[in-house]
C-alpha cells in the first residue's frame, strides 16, 4: 500500500480550530463566565515532610466572602493515584485528596473557596496549622537506605513494593544467553543524569466545577484524560461516575502534565461543599511546584561490544526520583527500558534493573518521551562510546545493529507498561532512509573531514542519535468514535480523544473524510465530553493517531456501508458497484447521487433511520516510529558555551496523516529537547523548596534562542495503522540530549553526561580533560 491514492489523508489540511484560536475565540477552560463562580485556592505545605498535629480553620471561615475551608477532616480518606491511566492503574495508590501528612514543599494542606481571590488569600493566611516536622530525604540513593525516613508509612496506601525503603516501583528483567560479557572485546560502563524538568505548557492547569440542572457535577477542565478524570474523581470523593460529567474544551498544551488528576478532585470537593461553581487555576509558580515534572533520573549502562561491531551484552539500571508520590512511577521507569533496549540487537544478555524512589521533592509524572528520554540519553551516548572504542564510524555501527523489518526483541514481551508486554515484530521502518536523509542534509561526510583538524578556542562538531518510541500501549489502550450523518451530507464526529493542541481533531477528521470520500470540512468534530463522546483513554503514550485513528476509520467504514445501502436503493444499483467519492455515491456505470440525497432519504423519505455508527479500536502491537537526529554544534572552549548551528530531525511516522501538523509536532518536541539539553533545570534549596519556579528563572527557549530546527518526514507504511500511520508526537524530544552530547564530544573531546550542558559544566569538563 502507499499514499498515492489518498485524497485527504497525507494532505496539509489546515488545523480546524486554528482560525478561531488565532482570532482569540473563547475556547479554553477559563474562557467562560459562570454566575456565582467562587475562587478556589490551596494552602501549600512549607515543610518537606511533616505531620499535621492541629489545624484550625475557624478564623479563616470568619473572613468575609469565604464560603468553605476544607481540610483532611472534611473529606473521605481514599487512597488513589493522580496518574490518569487505564484501570486498574499501575501506579501505587498513595495519594489522598487531603491528608494529615505533607510530603514535600508544595503539598496540599487545605483548600478554600471564596467570593474573591483576595478573600481566598486572606483565608489561607488565617488557617492555623501546627506541624510536627519529620526528617526528610531528598536523594534517591539516601532514600533507599535502611533507616531512611519512610515517606509513605501510612498503612492504607496500596501497591507500594517497599514503603520502608521508599521504593514506589521496581522492575527487574533479564535475558540470559551465556555468561555476561564473555564474548565482548570491550566492556563500557557509564552513568547519565537528568534533573527535575517542567512541562511548561503555556496554559496553567485550571478546573471549573459546577452543577447542571440535575444537580450533577460538571468539571470543565484542562485535561488530556477526561474519562480517567471522571473515574478517579468518582473514586476519590466516593460519588458515582454517573453523577459526574467531564468536559475537555481546547487545551493550552499538556505534554503529559495534564495526564493527571491535579485539581479536579479538590475543586469538585469545594463545589460540593458550597453548592456553588468553583474555579481553581494554578499560578505559574504552582505549575512548577505542585503539578508534575519529568522524573529526574540516574541511568547506569554497561555494554559489551566485539571488534566487529556486534553488541554482546547490555545492562541498564535506572533509578528514578518520583518525588513525594508515585504517579507514573512504574510505567515511566519501564518505558525507559522497553522503548530503548529493543532498538539494537544484543547478541547474548540483556538486563534491566529499575527503581522509582520516593523523596520529599515535587512529584514527577508523565512527560513527553516518558522514560525513553532518559533511556536514550544513555543508550545513544554509549553507542558513540562503543563505536569509538572499536574504531568504527558511529553511523555504520548503528546501521549494523538497529532492529530491522520483521525482527522482534525479547524485551517487547518482557516489558510492557506496568505489566508484561506484547510480543511484536517491526512491521514498518524508514530508519535507513531517515539516516541517509539526515547525513545528506547536515553534510556529514564533508563536515567530518573539514572539522578533523581544528585549532583555536572555537570548535565545531557533529553528532547523531537514533531512536524509536511506540504507538499506544498494546492491549491496554482503547478508543471509540461515533459518526452521524446530517441532511447536507456532513457528519458529526464524536470522539473521546483529547486534542490538547496537537491537532488530533483535524487528523481524525481527515481519516473519516478519506473513508467517506468527502472534504475534511464536512466533518464537524467534537472532543471530548464524557456525557456526549464515546470512551477514549485519552491523549498519551503516542496513541491518538494509531488507536483513536483506528476507531475513527472503523466507524467511518461502517457508516460508508450504511450510505451505500441507501444509495443502492436510490440508484437501483447493486451495493458492490457503488463507491463514495467527491461527496457522492457513484456507481460503476457513472450514475450517482449526492450524500445529501442519501441523508434526506434516510431521515425523511423511506425506511427512515439515522445513518450513524460507533466503533472501538485497540491494538495487539505498538508499532514504533523511528527517528534519526543530526546536529552540528559550536563549542567555545574558553567559556564552555555550546551553540547549536543546525539540527536535522528525520522522522518515520508511517504515513503522516497531516504532514504539516506532523512536522509541527516534531519541531516542538525537538525544541523542548534542545531546551532540556542546554538550559532547563529546576533548582532547590536544602529543604526542597524550588528556587526558580518562574519563566524568568527557569529558562525555556524563546524564538531568539532557537537554533535552526529542520524536520523531515520519512514516509513508510505501517500495515496496522490507519492509512499506514504510526505516532509522531513524543519521539522528537528524545534526540537532542544524546545527539548534542555526541556532537560536543566530537567537537572538543569531552563527554557530557549530566544535563543540562550549561557553560559551567562544559567548561569544567574541558578543564578536567586538559
Amino acid at each position, binding site marked *: 500500500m502507499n499514499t498515492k491514492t489518498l485524497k485527504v489523508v497525507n494532505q496539509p489540511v*489546515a488545523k480546524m480550530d486554528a482560525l478561531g484560536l488565532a*482570532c*482569540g475565540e*473563547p475556547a479554553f477552560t477559563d*474562557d467562560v463566565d459562570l454566575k456565582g463562580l467562587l475562587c478556589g485556592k490551596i494552602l501549600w505545605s512549607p515543610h518537606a515532610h511533616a505531620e499535621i498535629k492541629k489545624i484550625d480553620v475557624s478564623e479563616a471561615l470568619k473572613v468575609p466572602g469565604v464560603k468553605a475551608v476544607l481540610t483532611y477532616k472534611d473529606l473521605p480518606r481514599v487512597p488513589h493515584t493522580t496518574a490518569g491511566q487505564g484501570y486498574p492503574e499501575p501506579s501505587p495508590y498513595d495519594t489522598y485528596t487531603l491528608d494529615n501528612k505533607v510530603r514535600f514543599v508544595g503539598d496540599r494542606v487545605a483548600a478554600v473557596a471564596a467570593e474573591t481571590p483576595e478573600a481566598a488569600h486572606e483565608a489561607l493566611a488565617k488557617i492555623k496549622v501546627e506541624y510536627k516536622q519529620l526528617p526528610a530525604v531528598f536523594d534517591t540513593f539516601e532514600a533507599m537506605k535502611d533507616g531512611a525516613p519512610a515517606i509513605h508509612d501510612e498503612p492504607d496506601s496500596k501497591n507500594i513494593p517497599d514503603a520502608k525503603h521508599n521504593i514506589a516501583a521496581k522492575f527487574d528483567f533479564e535475558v540470559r544467553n551465556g555468561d555476561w560479557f564473555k564474548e565482548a572485546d570491550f566492556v563500557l560502563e557509564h552513568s547519565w543524569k537528568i534533573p527535575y524538568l517542567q512541562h511548561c505548557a*503555556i496554559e496553567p492547569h485550571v478546573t471549573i466545577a459546577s452543577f447542571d440542572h440535575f444537580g450533577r457535577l460538571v468539571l470543565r477542565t484542562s485535561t488530556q484524560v477526561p474519562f480517567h478524570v471522571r473515574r478517579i474523581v468518582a473514586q476519590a470523593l466516593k460519588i458515582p461516575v454517573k453523577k459526574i460529567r467531564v468536559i475537555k474544551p481546547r487545551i493550552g*498544551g499538556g505534554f503529559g502534565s495534564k495526564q493527571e488528576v491535579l485539581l479536579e478532585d479538590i475543586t469538585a470537593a469545594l463545589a460540593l461543599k458550597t453548592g456553588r461553581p468553583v474555579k481553581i487555576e494554578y499560578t505559574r509558580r504552582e505549575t512548577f511546584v505542585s503539578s508534575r515534572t519529568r522524573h529526574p533520573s540516574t541511568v547506569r549502562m554497561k555494554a559489551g561490544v566485539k571488534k566487529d561491531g556486534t553488541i554482546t551484552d547490555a545492562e541498564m539500571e535506572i533509578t528514578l526520583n518520583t518525588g513525594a508520590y508515585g504517579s507514573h512511577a512504574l510505567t515511566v521507569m519501564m518505558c525507559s527500558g522497553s522503548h530503548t533496549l529493543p532498538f539494537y540487537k544484543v547478541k547474548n544478555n540483556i538486563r534491566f534493573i529499575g527503581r522509582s524512589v520516593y523523596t520529599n521533592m515535587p512529584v514527577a509524572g508523565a512527560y513527553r518521551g516518558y522514560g525513553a528520554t532518559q533511556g536514550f540519553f544513555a543508550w545513544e551516548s554509549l553507542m558513540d562510546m562503543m563505536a569509538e572504542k572499536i574504531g568504527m564510524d558511529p553511523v555504520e555501527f548503528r546501521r549494523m545493529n538497529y532492529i530491522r523489518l520483521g525482527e522482534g526483541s525479547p524485551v517487547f514481551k518482557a516489558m510492557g507498561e506496568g505489566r508484561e508486554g506484547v510480543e511484536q515484530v517491526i512491521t514498518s521502518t524508514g530508519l535507513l532512509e531517515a539516516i541517509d536523509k539526515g547525513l545528506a542534509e547536515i553534510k556529514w561526510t564533508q563536515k567530518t573531514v573539514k572539522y578533523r583538524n581544528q585549532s583555536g578556542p572555537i570548535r565545531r562538531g557533529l553528532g547523531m542519535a537514533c531512536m524509536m518510541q511506540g504507538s499506544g500501549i498494546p492491549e491496554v489502550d482503547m478508543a471509540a468514535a461515533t459518526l452521524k450523518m446530517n441532511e447536507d451530507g456532513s457528519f458529526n464526529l464524536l470522539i473521546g480523544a483529547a486534542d490538547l493542541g496537537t491537532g488530533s481533531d483535524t487528523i481524525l477528521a481527515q481519516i473519516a473524510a478519506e473513508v467517506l470520500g468527502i472534504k475534511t470540512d464536512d466533518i464537524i468534530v467534537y472532543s471530548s465530553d464524557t456525557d456526549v463522546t464515546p470512551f477514549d483513554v485519552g491523549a498519551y503514550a503516542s496513541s491518538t493517531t494509531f488507536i483513536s485513528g483506528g476507531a475513527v476509520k472503523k466507524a467511518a467504514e461502517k457508516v460508508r456501508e450504511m450510505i451505500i445501502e441507501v444509495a443502492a436503493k436510490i440508484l437501483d444499483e447493486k451495493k458492490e458497484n457503488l463507491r463514495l467519492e467527491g461527496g457522492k455515491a457513484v456507481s460503476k456505470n457513472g450514475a450517482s447521487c449526492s450524500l445529501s440525497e442519501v441523508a434526506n432519504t434516510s431521515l425523511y423519505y423511506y425506511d427512515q433511520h439515522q445513518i450513524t455508527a460507533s466503533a472501538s479500536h485497540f491494538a495487539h502491537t505498538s508499532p514504533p516510529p523511528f527517528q534519526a537526529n543530526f546536529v552540528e554544534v559550536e563549542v567555545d572552549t574558553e567559556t564552555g558555551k555550546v551553540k547549536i548551528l543546525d539540527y536535522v530531525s528525520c522522522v518515520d511516522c508511517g504515513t503522516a496523516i497531516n504532514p504539516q501538523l506532523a512536522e509541527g509536532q516534531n519541531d516542538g518536541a525537538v525544541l523542548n529537547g534542545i531546551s532540556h539539553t542546554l538550559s532547563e533545570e529546576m533548582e532547590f534549596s536544602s529543604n526542597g523548596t524550588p528556587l526558580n519556579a518562574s519563566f524568568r528563572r527557569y529558562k525555556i527557549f524563546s524564538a531568539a534562542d*532557537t537554533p535552526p530546527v529542520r524536520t523531515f518526514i520519512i514516509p513508510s507504511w505501517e500495515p496496522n495503522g490507519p492509512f499506514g500511520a504510526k505516532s509522531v508526537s513524543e519521539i522528537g524530544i528524545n534526540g537532542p540530549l544524546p545527539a548534542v552530547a555526541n556532537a560536543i564530544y566530537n567537537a572538543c573531546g569531552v563527554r557530557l553526561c549530566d544535563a543540562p550542558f550549561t557553560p559551567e559544566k562544559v567548561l569544567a569538563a574541558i578543564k578536567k580533560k586538559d
Partner: protein
Amino acid sequence: MKKNNILEVKNGVFEITLTINGEKLVLSTKNGESLLDALRRWGLKGVKKGCDTGDCGSCTVIVNGTPVLGCLVPAVAAHDGDIITIEGLGTVQKPHPIQKAFVEAGAVQCGFCIPGMILSSKHLLDRMPNPSEAEIRKALDGNLCRCTGYVKQIEAVKMAAKRLR
C-alpha cells in the same frame, strides 16, 4: 472624586474611559486590577494569562501603538488609551492577513500563546514591512511557545509580511 482625570466612584473602584478595538467605552476597574484581568473580565478572553509575571507574553495587547504585557499594567493606566486586542484584529469571518498566515503555515498548535504572538507580529510588520528572520525572532522573543519550536510561526510572519507589502 477625580484623580488624574479618573473618576473614583467609590473606595477603590474607578471609572475609566478607553477605546478598545475601535469602540469608546466607559468601564470600571478596581484598585490594583491588572489590564489583563480587567480585559478578561470585560469579556475579551483572547487575552491569555500564562504566567501573570510578565515572562510569557500571552497577555500581549497593543496600547497606543505599542505592545504591552497586560499583566504588568494596572487597568487604570489604560485610561484614555487606545487598546487593540486580538479580537480587534480580525474575526473568524474576516480574519486579518496575519491570522490567516498563522493558520496556513500551521503555526497554531494549542493556540494559547497565539493571540499575543500575532499582536507582536502585527507591531513588527507595522514598523517593518520586510523584516529579516533575525528581526522576526527578536520581535517574537517575548512570546513563549512550548508547542511549535517557533519554526512555523516564523514562516507565518514571513508569509504575512509578503502579503501585507
